[in-house]
């Protein structure tokens, strides 16, 4: 494969492990490009209610009007008219792996999804291009009233609940890419956890792009009712194509009083994906929202998961890891908005750049008028592994109250010679020593991951560190 050599030095093993692709066998594919007809066609194909169709068309107008962001990475190379906005892989969504077409099942088998489902998960959703092809949740959770559906199914089967929350956290006017997603969204998860229900084993969604020049626009809506708990995990990979794909998701989360939601992402797109995602949660009285955000893949990622703390006692936490290798730009970070008194938040960011990659933290801590006795700490650490790589830190702090405690600290460094020397003097070779130091560096975040992800993350870091010291 011609793409292999370009990919090799970056994330070794990616091409073999994730970078393969199936023959394109979609049952429907919209034509290239974006206009009213394409948007209307997506809505018609899905048999949506009129309000949703109108919502999409309105969002398209907003998308067309909004300028590209003037800050952050250069996105001018994205050719919106060269993308397939909707690729329907199968005629329906399946509840058993046996029904999933063989090609796709092989893909997910290779990625280890069905196996993981049996071992560690309460429920699994698997999205292939534009649609969710598999969705299943444990029966006992279903009986408790937990909903875990694709977003399309959510709209179809629970329209009232869906309509009540959809677009309330991230309106289509929020930013250009949120508008785009609102116009062409397809797939993603719809989750409702009833009052007091603890889903103690994670729900997982897996996102896979297969088609070339494809845009994936999944939409996720999670409602965690009072006193409930859920942990949602998503993973993403794509084949290594020579042309670029676009992934632009919108994730809206409502965490009601006393509830807790944890959302873990391991983003491992191939290096031809532009990953431009809007993620936001609102947390009410004494609720907790936690984002664990790992960004390893993609060409450019712009993602700043945010928590709006709407009522007293709400707590927001963002743990972010970004790893940028050759040709990658990870513009990650987080935002915490204190809208009520006695709210607290914590952001920990660890970024690593290597082989000319650029990793950074961009974040906002905002304390609105009246949010007295708010507390926030932000810690950003960056590790630069060679002289060609780059690290950026852009923390914003906007404080409109006096009775608050806000702190931010950031450091940028390289792997310490003393640390290397110490390990080497104990007989560990240099490469392994460096990998150990990097593992230690990201440990505070990795330990928050579910077990199997922590193992996977460490393995990925090991892979990426190979040949990095010399």
């Amino acid at each position, binding site marked *: 494969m011609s793409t292999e050599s370009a990919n090799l030095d970056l994330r070794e093993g990616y091409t073999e492990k994730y970078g393969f692709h199936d023959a394109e066998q979609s049952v429907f594919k919209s034509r290239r490009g974006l206009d009213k007809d394409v948007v209307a066609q997506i809505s018609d194909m899905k048999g949506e209610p009129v309000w949703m169709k109108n919502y999409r068309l309105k969002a398209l107008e907003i998308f067309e009007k909004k300028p590209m962001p*003037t*800050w952050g990475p250069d996105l001018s190379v994205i050719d919106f008219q060269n993308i397939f906005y909707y690729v329907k892989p199968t005629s329906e969504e399946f509840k058993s792996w046996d029904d999933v077409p063989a090609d796709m099942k092989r893909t997910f088998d290779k990625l280890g999804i069905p196996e993981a489902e049996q071992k560690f998960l309460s429920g699994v959703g698997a999205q292939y291009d534009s649609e969710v092809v598999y969705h299943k949740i444990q029966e006992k959770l279903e009986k408790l009233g937990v909903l875990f559906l694709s977003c399309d199914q959510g709209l179809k089967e629970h329209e009232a609940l869906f309509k009540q929350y959809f677009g309330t956290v991230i309106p289509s006017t929020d930013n250009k890419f949120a508008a785009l997603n609102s116009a062409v969204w397809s797939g993603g998860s719809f989750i409702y956890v009833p009052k007091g229900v603890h889903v103690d084993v994670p729900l997982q969604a897996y996102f896979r792009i297969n088609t070339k020049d494809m845009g994936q626009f999944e939409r996720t809506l999670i409602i965690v009712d009072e006193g409930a708990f859920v942990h949602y995990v998503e993973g993403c990979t794509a084949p290594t194509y020579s042309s670029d794909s676009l992934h632009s998701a919108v994730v809206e989360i409502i965490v009601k009083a006393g509830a807790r939601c944890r959302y873990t992402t391991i983003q491992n797109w191939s290096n031809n994906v532009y990953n431009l995602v809007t993620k936001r949660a609102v947390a009410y009285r004494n609720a907790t929202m936690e984002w664990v955000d790992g960004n390893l893949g993609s060409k450019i990622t712009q993602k700043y998961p945010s928590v709006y703390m709407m009522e007293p006692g709400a707590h927001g936490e963002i743990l972010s890891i970004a790893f940028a290798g050759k040709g990658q730009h990870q513009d990650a970070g987080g935002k915490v908005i204190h809208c009520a008194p006695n709210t607290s938040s914590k952001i920990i960011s660890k970024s690593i750049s290597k082989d000319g990659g650029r990793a950074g933290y961009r974040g906002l801590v905002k304390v609105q*008028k009246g949010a*007295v006795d708010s507390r926030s700490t932000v810690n950003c650490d*960056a590790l*630069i*592994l*060679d*002289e*060609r*790589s*780059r*690290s*950026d*830190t*852009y*923390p*914003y*702090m*906007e*404080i*409109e*109250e*006096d*009775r*608050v*405690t*806000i*702190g*931010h*600290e*950031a*450091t*940028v*460094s*390289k792997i310490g010679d003393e640390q290397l020397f110490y390990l080497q003097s104990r007989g560990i070779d240099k490469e392994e020593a460096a990998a150990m130091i990097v593992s230690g560096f990201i440990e505070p975040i990795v330990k928050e991951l579910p077990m199997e992800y922590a193992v996977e993350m460490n393995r990925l870091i090991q892979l990426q560190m190979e040949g990095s010291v010399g």
Partner: protein
Amino acid sequence: MTPTATAAPDIQSWITDALERAGKREEPGWALDQRRSGAAHARALGFPTREHELWRRIDFRTLENSFARLDPFRASPATRNLDDLPPALLERLGAETGRIGLIVQRNADVVIEQNAPELARQGVIVSSLDHAVVKHADLLKGRLGSLIAPDYDGYAAMGAMLRSGGAFVYVPDGVEAAVPIRLLQWLDGTGQIAAPRNVIVLGKGARATIVEEMHSDAGDGDAIAFHLGGTEVFVGDDAKLVYGTLQEWGGHVYHYSNQRADIGRNAELQWIQTVLGGRMVKSNSYFNLIAPGGQAFVHGFMFGDGRQQFHLHTLQRHLADHCTSDLLIKGCLKDRARSVYQGLIQVAEGAQRTDAYQANRNLVLSDTARADSIPGLEILANDVRCTHGATIGSVDPEQMYYLQARGLPKNDAQRLIVEGFFAPVIDRIPLEGIRDHLRTIIQRKIG
């Protein structure tokens, strides 16, 4: 408000006037060309818009609305000697006038330029920039205007075009300036623009201490005045410069200024900037470490009350290896004051063994005040140690309790805490008289 209210200034007539005045002083052609280039950029750029990252958090519209009516060339009232200076300024000078290098600017003109005999003997030049640009053209050409790009923004462009007054200080190679040099600026009343440009040059191994002060009367109603300043500093190899500024404008003054310093091999710059006055203040300070071993120590504070708005932007630019920069900016706000600190450490490719630190600490005394802090890092080298920290908080209630429990009234307790907060910066100000004055202002502001 109609869009026509922000009538653009008549650049054509201003540049014509500026060139005519400069021509009368026999300003050399290259300096006149800088004014022309400033005019061209001012025309092209206009006022900075909110799209500009550095202008999103401060609003100069009130100034811009009346900009066209301001007088950029207001002459000073007759000032033949020190006794003609406004009493408030005279008081600032104190008793040490005869023994220091001194430049006093009033409105658009430098009215007093005096070199101390010791300095003159050493070959140190202390001059108004207007005179120096004629008399010491060889020393200024290639330096004046080289660090502040005229197209940096619309205001920088207008500053290049209108340049009025400012000081030139030159310390030859190996000379340690025997006495401090003081630069004072005064603004009489409202309705005017003063656009001084200072150029400071320290030769190889030279040393000097310079203190710059900005004062004015209290203003009058809603009318405003505008200070459009610029300072370009060249610290030669192995040289050391201590540069302190004290800004205490009245509440009618809008302040915009650019400070730039090039720091040579193994050279050291100690920069202390204090911001107390003015209605709105926008300041951009860049510290360029251009050769190995350079060091920049930057300390600043701002104390806002009433409806004051301050926007401080700093850039620590590591362009060579083995350089150190250490920055601490403290802000204290009460009433409805607002401050923005926007700082960045940049480490260029190859600037290995960089040691850079940036800290911003904010003390907010009222719930209607607001502090924004945006410390940033852009690092393109790997063998570096770069750290920054920012905090925003109110007075620690335990400290207040401790002091009040010892019988101190609330106000005194708060004053002590604020003084303590500023002490690490004040202690670095070179002259005792100025340190005392700063403490007085802080007391007055706490009330």
